[in-house]
């Protein structure tokens, strides 16, 4: 049972919607049910806006090609995923939700002229030691729905929200290994100005207040504004280089927010096949001053290998509630 949207929802409206829902729930003191809506949301006839795409590509500091960067496709699909999260029966509040990780399989190049169909649904509602986590799956297909081009799984955490009936994992693999991180010599450095969040909001449409200004971030309980996780992901992908093989996979786990302004050090290590061809890259980013890890991840040619080094493996494929039958 899919919900078909006739056009791409506006993120600004979705955020307002989310704020209204949050206020309503506070007023009515409704206790959400620990279940996810079974329906997916789908938008057809989606096409990239060339001016926005160019601005996105230039913000990442790389030449603007006609092929969409993987991070841009995430931005394109994000309003659809958000539409899932603002549904009345979605059990977690959208505002203040934290991005934990992302795993993407980019199966084929997508050109800005391609007409796309984007479908998103939620799965894996689970307890987390500091709240409740949920996965949002977004699939981008050719408009006829026949070929899958891009598939992303984003894991979000609603901090401090505990739903009845969900187990709260004990103090498992706490992030205690942060203290023993010995930073390697960086292979790159980012100087992120205080306007980094606003700049990414302008090209991605993601005007989440936690990214825009100190004041709007404080209103949501943060001491300063923070960089978008997807800015970091898109930029590290750009740094790793393109074009990559037509089929590649990447993942990123966010370990601590990047409070703006910031100086971020990165270490990117490539692996090559015997014939010299690129096989993959691993990356780690940390605060240049405090050496606190901000994020880690990898990019590999072809389909993803589940990661086990940091946190738990992130399944990229497999059956899930509400999964779309292959059409």
């Amino acid at each position, binding site marked *: 049972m899919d919900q078909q949207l006739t056009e791409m929802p506006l993120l600004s409206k979705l955020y307002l919607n989310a704020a209204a829902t949050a206020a309503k729930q506070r007023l009515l003191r409704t206790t959400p049910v620990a279940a996810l809506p079974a329906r997916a949301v789908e938008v057809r006839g989606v096409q990239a806006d060339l001016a926005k795409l160019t601005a996105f590509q230039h913000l990442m*500091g790389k030449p603007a090609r006609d092929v969409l960067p993987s991070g841009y496709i995430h931005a394109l699909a994000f309003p659809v995923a958000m539409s899932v999260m603002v549904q009345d029966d979605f059990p977690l509040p959208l505002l203040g939700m934290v991005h934990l990780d992302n795993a993407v399989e980019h199966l084929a190049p997508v050109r800005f002229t391609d007409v796309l169909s984007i479908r998103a649904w939620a799965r894996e509602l689970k307890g987390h030691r500091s709240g409740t986590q949920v996965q949002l799956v977004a699939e981008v297909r050719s408009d006829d729905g026949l070929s899958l081009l891009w598939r992303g799984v984003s894991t979000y955490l609603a901090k401090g929200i505990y739903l009845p009936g969900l187990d709260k994992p004990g103090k498992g693999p706490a992030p205690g290994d942060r203290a023993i991180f010995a*930073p390697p*010599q*960086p*292979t*790159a*450095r*980012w*100087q992120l100005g205080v*306007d980094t969040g606003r700049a990414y909001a302008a090209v991605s449409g993601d005007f989440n207040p936690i990214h825009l200004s100190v004041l709007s971030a404080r209103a949501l309980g943060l001491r300063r504004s923070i960089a978008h996780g997807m800015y970091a992901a898109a930029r590290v992908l750009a*740094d*790793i*280089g393109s074009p990559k093989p037509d089929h590649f996979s990447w993942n990123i786990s966010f370990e601590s927010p990047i409070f703006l302004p910031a100086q971020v050090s990165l270490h*990117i*290590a*490539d692996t090559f096949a015997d014939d010299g061809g690129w096989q993959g*890259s691993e990356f780690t980013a940390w605060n240049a001053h405090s050496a606190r890890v901000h994020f880690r991840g990898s990019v590999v040619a072809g389909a993803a290998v589940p990661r086990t080094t940091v946190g738990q493996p992130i399944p990229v494929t497999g059956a899930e509630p509400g999964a779309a039958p292959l059409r």
Partner: protein
Amino acid sequence: MNATTTPASGVRKAVVVGGNRIPFARAGGAYAHSSNQDMLTAALDGLVARFGLQDETIGEVAAGAVLKHSRDFNLTREAVLGSALSATTPAYDLQQACATGMEAVIGLSNKIKLGQLDSAIAGGVDSASDAPIAVSEGLRAILLDLNRAKTTVDKVRILARIRPKDLSPDAPSTGEPRTGLSMGEHQALTTAQWKISRLAQDELALASHKNLAAAYDRHFFDDLITPYRGLSRDSNLRADSTMEKLSTLKPVFGRNLGEAATMTAGNSTPLTDGASTVLLASEDWAAAHELPMLANVVDGEAGAVDFVHGKDGLLMAPAFAVPRLLARNGLTLADIDYFEIHEAFAGTVLSTLAAWEDEDFGKTRLGLDGAFGSVDRDKLNVNGSSLAAGHPFAATGGRLVATLAKMLHERGHVDGRPARGLISVCAAGGQGVVALLEAR
């Protein structure tokens, strides 16, 4: 290998007649208010005076600058028009980062060898003091849109887009565009990778100062330099430097390497202003003008490495280009009498030498049977190099070619064959240009 390297049939020789540069000045010093065009013209004037080129039409003048104002789109031609050369001398700008001067020499020499030119002047200039500062990207986009706007309403609407942050200027940085790391931080990685000690780097820096000072003292540079703006020696030169003084300096690059942080302001080149020129010619042209012939430009080679994620060091391209150049000419390191390896950092020179002495590097990276070979330190940068003289990016190639040509000419023959010299210059973007010269 005693055979001289002879050009292929149909290709004639290109000779270095001589050179002229102005003393190099630390940024913000004697040339703080001198533009690239000022300095390139001064270097050109000195060359014209030295070789009597007034009103002479030179085949072509090629020079460039790394830090360049957009108004200087025709920098070299403008310098020619402002010089005593004939106004009928064509000129062009080129740019290959710190290898600009080397590429100018090699390209022009090749044209002479092919008979397209009889004479040429190669040069380079850079000012870190008078660096271009651009308006911010935001303001630039607004101003360009404003220029395209047709109506007053449109113009007002476009002007209203200006925000305070758009008004902050955009200055050039020494950071590599793809990594955001400065050249020094990149070299710190390489220096640590090849385990180059602080002591070895300081020794190389000291030798550079001592050798350059000694060369000035015996008047070696008298016919290579024309004083400018009150300077008659490179202002970075510290003839009285000692290991004690160098050892007190704190590391400035790779500081998070802890014990392995070895790169200081003493064993790294400072930002520098300056210009250099080299007069190149066919043998016939030089003879007809009764000018000296110091050396032949035998061959040149460019190289580049994949440095972006640290596969190779940013400044290690010459470690690959030199073996190719020497192999093509049937030579080994043992056949070279003088090495001019540009001292971007002491660590750059020492990492390159270490790579050449490394058996694994020779086998796996250079495809040789073992290590490429060793450089006899008594033949290395014998009249000082960039650590002492300074390094105005595009001007370094001209300094090296003129200096080496004179050294080779003074040396004359070794074992019955002309003395040979090798120049190696690393450049931003993971590039390098190297060249082989031979005494006349």
